[in-house]
């Protein structure tokens, strides 16, 4: 329960990052989709299935240790690769209307029209699938 609220806080900081990089369209979409839709969906599911503390599944300490080691190895690898190239120029915005809705809309509906339509089909099929999965099976009900 608390972890979901903290995840909302994390997504909010990501939204602030988008605003700082002047990607206003992405900031708004991130705010609406992630904090508005996805996290509400998470909260609803959590409240729907009503977990208590005793039912919380636990992994053994060995598995946890191995998991942390594996994740740490991943982190160290990327950071070491990052140290290998020492280019660290600042992220400056050359074109001030790069992330605005007008500019992105032009690109989205000119060059990326087909992926946009395909993503709409993906969302439609996901909606149908979710409804199909979450409704009760009429044979067992």
């Amino acid at each position: 329960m608390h972890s979901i609220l903290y995840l909302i806080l994390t997504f909010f900081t990501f939204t602030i990052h988008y605003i700082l990089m002047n990607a206003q369209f992405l900031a708004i979409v991130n705010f609406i989709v992630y904090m508005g839709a996805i996290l509400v969906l998470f909260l609803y599911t959590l409240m729907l299935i009503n977990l208590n503390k005793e039912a919380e599944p636990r992994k053994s300490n060995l598995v946890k240790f191995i998991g942390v080691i594996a994740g740490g190895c991943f982190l160290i690898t990327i950071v070491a690769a990052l140290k290998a190239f020492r280019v660290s120029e600042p992220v400056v915005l050359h074109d001030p209307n790069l992330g605005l809705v007008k500019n992105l809309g032009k690109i989205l509906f000119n060059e990326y029209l087909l992926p946009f339509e395909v993503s709409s089909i993906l969302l439609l099929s996901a909606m149908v699938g979710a409804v199909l999965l979450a409704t009760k099976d009429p044979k067992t009900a």
Partner: protein
Amino acid sequence: METLTNNIQSIPLNHYILLCTIVFSIGVIGVLIRRNAIVIFMSIELMLNSVNLLLTAFSVYRGDATGQVFVFFIMALAAAEVAVGLAIIVMIYRNTNSVDTGVLNRLKW
């Protein structure tokens, strides 16, 4: 205020890469060490979000709006994935009365 804006806009690219790597690693570790299916899904969301932020940083760095369009597609994909995944979790909970991923071990065979 002006100096603050200038300071913010002079963040090196490496810092963004470092931040996104750390957030992504937290997501990976969360997937590896937890057995609660909902927490695993939240970790996956964290990984997707860190990649989104990194793509946006690269896009601003290169002055190319294609990266931001790509982030938009990733967000649409994440929304679809969460809807289907949470429906699957609800179905699993209805069948087995738990969200422990260990009860799904018969999928192994």
